[in-house]
């Protein structure tokens, strides 16, 4: 009998001493982490240079499971924390990994300003269309008519179309996939690593426990079938046309891939122009260690 060595290739990227994780059966967050780890393998990126910052919520727990320098910050503030980290040590590759409520509601102001500044951050936004950690309340991304614990008669608010929002604010790379599109998602994450500037990848992900169940949309498997049947790949689609509905088509693909000088390049150019030789590069003196 042959005993196979069955180490999962993504295991070296995980804090296996923290398993099992807290995510529910059928949840898509673990799938996105798997894609993230595969993107790290593919891109051969230096793991020591990577730092991952999360906010609060189900996706916010990603920071606790990846074997990287990882920060589980406060609700909505992953992006400004990541901004400080990146500015203090520009050599770091900083990933923000958080949920739709965290990034677009309580953290929405930071999202648009980081995109405007074009801070060199890679944002992975797992969008399960709901506040899951707290029990399934309405989020700014919840599609119209959906039932949530705080909209028991159906949501009436218009939802945010996140790719449209971040493109308008200035992101240089915007893509959307679902947790069905594992290859494409991993590839997109890899592409984002190659971009300098504010990159945003939205991943539509099921919450069978709260969103699918309350809206009678089936379980995790049913949601995969929905994603498979109703997703349409449209690279370069105008982001104004990619809004989501409860059971309609999901436009996926790479919507934006453009170049714009990132914050630190702009800062450097401005300082050199204004101060000339009296400008001292921050990276030379930033560490306060003895």
């Amino acid at each position, binding site marked *: 009998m042959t005993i196979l060595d069955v180490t999962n290739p993504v295991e070296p990227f995980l*804090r296996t001493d*923290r398993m099992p994780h807290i995510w529910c059966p059928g949840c898509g967050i673990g799938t996105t982490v798997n894609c993230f780890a595969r993107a790290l393998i593919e891109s051969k990126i230096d*793991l*020591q*240079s990577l*730092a991952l*910052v999360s906010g609060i919520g189900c996706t916010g727990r990603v*920071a*606790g499971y990846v*074997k*990287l*320098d*990882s*920060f*589980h*910050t*406060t609700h*909505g*503030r992953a992006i*400004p*924390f*990541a*901004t*400080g*980290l*990146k*500015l*203090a*040590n520009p*050599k*770091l590759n900083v990933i923000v990994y958080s949920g739709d409520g965290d990034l677009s509601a309580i953290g929405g*102001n*930071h999202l648009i*300003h980081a995109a405007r500044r074009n801070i060199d951050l890679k944002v992975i936004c797992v969008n399960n269309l709901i506040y899951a950690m707290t029990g399934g309340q309405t989020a700014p991304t919840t599609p119209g008519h959906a039932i949530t614990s705080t909209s028991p008669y159906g949501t009436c608010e218009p939802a945010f179309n996140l790719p449209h929002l971040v493109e308008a604010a200035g992101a240089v790379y915007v893509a959307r996939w679902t947790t069905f599109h594992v290859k494409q998602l991993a590839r997109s994450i890899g592409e984002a690593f190659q971009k300098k500037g504010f990159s945003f990848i939205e991943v539509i992900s099921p919450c069978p426990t709260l969103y699918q169940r309350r809206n009678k949309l089936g379980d995790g498997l049913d949601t995969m079938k929905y994603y498979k049947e109703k997703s349409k790949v449209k690279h370069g689609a105008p982001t104004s046309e990619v809004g989501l509905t409860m059971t309609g088509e999901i436009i996926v693909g790479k919507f934006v891939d453009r170049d714009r000088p990132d914050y630190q390049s702009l*800062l450097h150019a401005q*300082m050199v122009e204004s*101060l000339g030789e*009296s*400008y*001292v*590069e*921050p990276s*030379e*003196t*930033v*560490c*306060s*260690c*003895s």
Partner: protein
Amino acid sequence: MKADPRGVLTGTHFLDGDHACCEGALAAGARFAAGYPITPSTEVVERFASRVPKVGGTFIQMEDELAASITLQGAVWGGAKAFTVTSGPGFSLMMEHIGYAAMTETPCVFVDVQRGGPSTGLPTLPAQADMMQARWGSHGDYEIIALCPNSPQECFDLTIQAFNFSEEFRVPVMFMMDEVVGHMTEKVIIPPADQIEVVPRRHTRKAVEDYLPYGTNGDGVPEMAHAGEGYKFHVTGLTHDEHGYPNMTPATQDKLVRRLQNKIHDAIDRITLLEEECFDSEDVVVVSYGITSRVAQRAIEMARERGLKVGKLRLITCWPFPEKRIRELAATTKAFVVPELNLGQMVREVERAANGKARTFAVPHAGGSVHRPEDILKVIVEASR
């Protein structure tokens, strides 16, 4: 270690308190600030924005105080010494991240140039009404250190002290200025860099495999690593164990929260900074801090001219509250008189520490100006009866 000379503007200057605070931060090694404009504090970061590109650092103006107060903490974990500056309404918005800094033991400084409140209150006029907020404003049990300067010179000297305490104890330090101290202009002497003691980061020297991010060596303060060095550590605002991993049990909570308190309590004698002018058995000791201590000084002189036995105790460290010294003085003093630009905050601490051994008299003032010395004198006279 000694200060990096590039950040030290050695010489004799004529500076307001806000600008002196900025120079203190630069001398202490701060190379990162995140801010949001708010009167009467903005001059600190305006000067920082002008000065720091020439000494190798970064200022960023964020979209609000919520962002500023966490951006600076990202910078700290990236290796910088960092701070933010604000006033009442902005300080209110920063409370959550004071708690985050306390929980994650992120060394940093929050400068609050106090103005009249509540709410928008008196944007251009002084108060000392954020003193309890500085101590208790974020939820949960935690300890911070708060220092109160009463002159531009102290805005320089004590800002360095604030950074040094923050690094030594890995704790957020509140630098509690007020509008008058912030905007008053006086002589400020900045010594040569080799005469300025700066506490470096408690950076670990341990090998990656031996490093325990929240393990301590007896003094209750863990060693720190920075992102990008290979330690692959985890930081969370959740209750965490020595690995930095979430562990939400009552036992872990008890151990962690008690350590966060005890690392400050156990060092209270070293943290306590007082200016004292007490002789034997005064009838009255005037306890004050910040700008009010300078008005109180005049009231004390007037009382002494009248033959009253009056001592002075100025709180430079307001938190942790120096209750031991109050307790000692209570044994030999008839009464404490506590003038402050609020309707009664630190006076409660004095009364608690005096524990009935001496009477305590408040001299409240709602803010917008400073006391008149006569108003303090009146209470001294009453208290000495």
